[in-house]
């Protein structure tokens, strides 16, 4: 049998090692408007040429800037109104966060609509009872306004509802048909009144609805109106 001696030696050994100490920092925010890097430019080229013809196509002319804002906005009214015209629904609701760009007065290209609505969200209709409808109104008012169509709301400066219109009577368990996107219907942006409701699919993407509307019109003239008013008193 082989004898194995195990000698355990524990010792500390020292060496010359470097340590670092964080001393100070400086910071800058740099605007990206530099000279272009040609390698990157040439990688982009084939991708760009493949899509730019259809993306640069002008679909419609807008007489006004389409901007974001609360309690209502020209871009929100534009999208909510055109969608409600497409479907058999009483009202239409979207969210400010889902409209991703603003559009300047002038020609609107297909690419611009892709920027406005980059998501593949589909249009759906949900039926809400009176309680859920009141919740929806509260949601819009508490957030100081979200894009909607088919309703009139007056709120005070603390975002409480003063009065509103009734899109249906809610007699005999009648429901209101609400058009929205599947993203919001599935719980996006915490629209809890949509939770668990049956979704009737339109079979149309939100972006395609906007593009189709733009293709069928020459000029659009979108303005703010009295659909939501803040009453100061």
């Amino acid at each position, binding site marked *: 049998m082989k004898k*194995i*001696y*195990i*000698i*355990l*030696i*524990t*010792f*500390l*050994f*020292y*060496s*010359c*090692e*470097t*340590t*670092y*100490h*964080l*001393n*100070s*920092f*400086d*910071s*800058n*925010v*740099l*605007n*990206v*408007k*530099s*000279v*272009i*890097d*040609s*390698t*990157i*430019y040439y*990688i*982009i080229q084939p*991708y760009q040429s*493949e*899509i730019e013809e259809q*993306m640069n196509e002008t679909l419609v002319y807008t007489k006004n800037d389409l901007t974001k804002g609360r309690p209502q906005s020209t871009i929100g009214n534009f999208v909510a109104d055109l969608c409600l015209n497409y479907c058999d629904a009483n009202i239409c609701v979207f969210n400010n966060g889902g409209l*991703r760009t*603003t*559009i*300047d007065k002038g020609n609107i290209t297909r*690419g611009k609509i*892709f*920027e406005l609505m*980059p*998501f*593949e969200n589909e249009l759906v209709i949900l039926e809400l009872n009176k309680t859920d409808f009141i919740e929806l109104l509260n949601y819009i008012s508490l957030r100081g306004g979200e894009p909607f169509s088919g309703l009139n709301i007056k709120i005070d400066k603390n975002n409480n509802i003063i009065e509103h219109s009734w899109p249906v009577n809610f007699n005999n368990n009648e429901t209101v048909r609400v058009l929205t996107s*599947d993203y919001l219907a*599935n*719980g*996006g*942006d*915490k629209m809890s009144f949509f939770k668990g409701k049956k979704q009737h699919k339109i079979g149309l993407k939100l972006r395609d609805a906007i593009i189709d509307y733009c293709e069928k019109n020459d000029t659009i003239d979108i303005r703010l109106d009295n659909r939501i008013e803040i009453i100061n008193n």
Partner: protein
Amino acid sequence: MSNRRKFIKNTTLGFIGLSIVPKLTLSNEINTKITILHTNDTHSHIHPFTSGRNKGLGGMAQRAGLINSIRRTEDHVLLLDAGDIFQGTPYFNFYGGELEFKLMSEMKYDAATLGNHDFDNGLIGLKKQLPFAKFPFLIANYDFSKTILKDKFNPYKIFNKGGIKIGVFGIGIELEGLVPKKLYKNTKYLDPVKQANYYSDILRNKEDCDLIICLSHLGFKYKSNKLSDITFAKKTRNIDLIIGGHTHTFLKKPISILNLEKKEVLINQVGWAGINLGKVDFNFNQYNGLKKVSGKPIFIK
């Protein structure tokens, strides 16, 4: 240039010192600058804006040009992104993020984390594009073990720049209510604070990192009690810099928050769409001296 000259001068003095004074009394000081460049929420913006208030700003060829010019003057650069690379222009609708990843790889990004929009084409859409990214995605609080993205990501990575050890880890936002379940499937969201403390402790105490950076897609600040970079910074330890995203916040300079141990944490975020590039330079003093290394048992047969 003057820094470099100073470095050479110090090093030379160090060598002379080495030859004439006993090793144990050697104390040599050198300054090292680490340059952190960062973006967030670039959202498929390949080209500069052509209208609106950001007209003429942004663009990936322009971003690369700026990064190149910084790399020419700075020795130790780390290029990072805090998520939401995907979604926002037709380039994403048509190519699914391929071009974004290719260009970021060409710019030599060192790491990124995942934003909620990086799930917009589902786990399968993200998986399909990963081969185009030559940089790692770091995420410490999404558990992908029951998904097709199992083993595709690490929680952290350590970089060595000019002798400085930099630990970088990623933290993502809660996906429920933000991303449809059918897109993120069985991805499990883990507590950001708990995960951050666990990994930053490893980075600081086990891996001996000199600088710890968290790439966060939590969002800068909320009116509600939702976890933000600010509340996250107060509840965590060992982090030096949080590079944030999600809320598209334009900060003029990083803000400073005291962490759980009352030590300073910097939080920075540079808007969105690649309009800006963030630059934070950390200056380190280096000491060469006597240091205890370890006490190890040695077995002799």
